[in-house]
């Protein structure tokens, strides 16, 4: 930072004496923050160490034995949770700041090692037999509890991912998956359900003021999942694709209003792009119905559609952006 600009601003009368002095002190002190460099070092260190140890264990599994490894993982898990329980700030329905950097890492490590522990038990000893749902259900519950109890967004993301895995496995028994008999219909419907569930969770956290800052994570996962499932439904159920398109439009409308309300440019972008994909698919289907696919007229119409709709979308984004910025000032 340079203080010439600020001296000039001060002479012009838009900067107070006090602010200028503060800036001058900052410039002459010339403090240099190594915060991100050090954090990156620590992060890389954790990654390398855990990866290296993992491979070491994997290579020496014959000489160590499964029980010893399980015991070790369990000890790591218990140790981490012990530390977290001891150092955590009291529970609140609001956001709770983590006491220190180590806390966050240890909580993550504890949760990860718990998942590994359960997975290892199932893989090596098939403790849960063929009830694979149970093997994903237990970690999921623990993850959700930890996410709320310790207030950790990373753990919440892991919990949501686990929820998706659990729902996927519950609706599609592993035997069917193994036999390659993918039942697309159930998976797509489950996706829609999961998306709706997560969106309701986001609404719930906001309305009931229960960990309000979780709302964004819930909403983000829910939005992506429901859009992708809806597009998949559009492509999959060809006979009723117009109905699918209507559902897509409904979802888009919901997120469009949400984007305007929250002034979220991110939600607006995601909504626009997914809707555009759906719209283009329907248009091409309609064109396809009109004539044989490779006739020249159809190709021209398709090309012109993409140019015109692209321009339309650009104008839409620019205008909505303006609208949201105008609201910004109110």
């Amino acid at each position, binding site marked *: *930072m*340079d203080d010439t600009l*600020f001296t000039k*601003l001060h002479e*012009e009368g*838009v900067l*107070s004496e006090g*602010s200028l002095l*503060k*800036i001058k002190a900052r410039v002459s002190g*010339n*403090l*240099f*923050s*190594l*915060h991100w*460099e*050090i954090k990156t*070092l*620590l*992060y*890389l*260190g*954790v990654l*390398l160490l855990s990866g*290296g140890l993992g*491979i070491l264990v994997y*290579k020496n599994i014959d000489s160590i034995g499964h029980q010893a490894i399980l015991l070790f993982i369990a000890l790591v898990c218990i140790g981490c949770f012990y530390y977290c329980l001891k150092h955590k700030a009291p529970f609140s329905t609001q956001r709770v*700041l*983590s006491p220190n*950097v180590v806390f*966050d*890492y240890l909580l993550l490590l504890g949760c990860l090692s718990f998942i590994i522990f359960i997975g290892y038990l199932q893989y090596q000893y098939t403790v849960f037999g063929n009830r694979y749902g149970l093997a994903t259900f237990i970690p999921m519950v623990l993850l959700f509890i930890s996410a709320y109890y310790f207030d950790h*967004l*990373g753990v919440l*993301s892991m919990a949501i991912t686990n929820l998706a895995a659990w729902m996927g496995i519950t609706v599609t028994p592993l035997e069917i998956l193994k036999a390659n008999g993918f039942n697309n219909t159930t998976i797509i419907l489950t996706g829609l359900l999961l998306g709706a569930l997560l969106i309701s969770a986001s609404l719930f956290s906001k309305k009931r003021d229960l960990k309000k800052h979780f709302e*964004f994570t819930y909403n*983000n996962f829910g939005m992506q999942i429901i859009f992708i499932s809806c597009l998949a439904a559009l492509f999959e159920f060809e006979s009723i694709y117009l109905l699918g398109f209507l559902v897509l439009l409904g979802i888009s409308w919901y997120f469009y209003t949400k984007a305007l309300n*929250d*002034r*979220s*440019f*991110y*939600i*607006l*972008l995601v909504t*626009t*792009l997914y809707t555009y994909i759906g719209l283009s698919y329907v248009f091409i289907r309609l064109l396809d119905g009109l004539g044989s696919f490779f006739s020249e007229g159809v*190709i*021209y119409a398709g*090309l012109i559609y*993409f*140019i015109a709709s*692209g*321009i339309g*979308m*650009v104008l839409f*984004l*620019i205008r909505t*952006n303006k609208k949201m910025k105008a609201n910004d000032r109110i």
Partner: protein
Amino acid sequence: MIAYNHAWLKNLLIRQDVDNAFDEGYITKAEQDTIHKKYPVGFYTPNIFIRIGLFILTLIIMLFSFGLMVMVFLSSVERVLGGLSIFFAIVAYLLLEYMVKTKKHYRSGVDDALLWGSAFALFAGISFPNSFSDLTNWIIIFIITLYGSLRFADRLMAVAADISLLGILFYACVECGSTVKAIAPFILMGASMIIYFGVKKLKLQETTLHYLGCLEMISITSLISFYAAGNYYVVRELSNSMFHLNLQPGASIPFGWLFWLFTIITPIIYISRGIHKKDAVMIRVGLLLVVAIVFTIRYYHSILPIETMMTFGGIILLTVGYILMKYLHEPKYGFTYKQISKKHALDKLNIESLVLAETFAPGIEHGGTKFGGGSFGGGGTSADY
């Protein structure tokens, strides 16, 4: 030379400094607002997500417009493709000038897409119908990207211009014969060094004010290219495949020890000089290149099994990081562990949520101007001037 409104660009720079000072808590909100009013910026610069959307959509429009043109000339497409490309590039460029001059777009996604689309189409139109040598192609790229960076101060264009200049040098060396070929690494290293110090001088001049971002990116690129030109792996494998040395595995190149020296010493020099001069860019590039040292050594010598290396590396990194964190808890020699920016310091969360918040969270970035900085992919390292 620059297409955008000069006064606004200047005001934008002032605003950025003022916004930084506000984020670090040195000036009040009222002062920030007064200064913003006094230095107006009339550019159309939307939020970063809108920019991404506009970029994608503009690319779609351009692709399908080109497709439409090709369809019209389908019967004789092979003869006219080059001309068509050039025509397309000219139309896209005129549109770009229109968007910038009349519609006041500045890093809106539309201008980015038009600039890169027209540059690519122009190069393709000139180069594809002819079978030019590599040297000629690099010269064409250099001219196009140099113009692009001078006219639109686009950071990625500047990087492309820098790389193509080095490409020209390299292929010129190749065409000069065996003696020059042998010293090509030194020529490239010298060139990178000249570019780096030249840029450093240029940065201090009043005339290059609007190119500061470009110059910053070029200096990062030349730090990396200086290292790459002297890196043992790059030199050995490149000369092996390009100059047909037919090296056996394990065989070294002439003056191999010299390149090993460069491989190991350069990052250390970067880091120590960066710390000495308090130059964040140098420290970060140096840290990044330490990784390159490890990979280069491991590629030729398997000193330890990979998992042992990882474990020990992890322990070393953790120890160093932890010691530094404790040591710099209170500022020492002008260095601190604490975050200076108030905006971030308020948010004492873990890395994941920070990353999430910075990439996704709505409402954190209001006001489009703040996101004027950072061409695609360029934001990360250059954020500190």
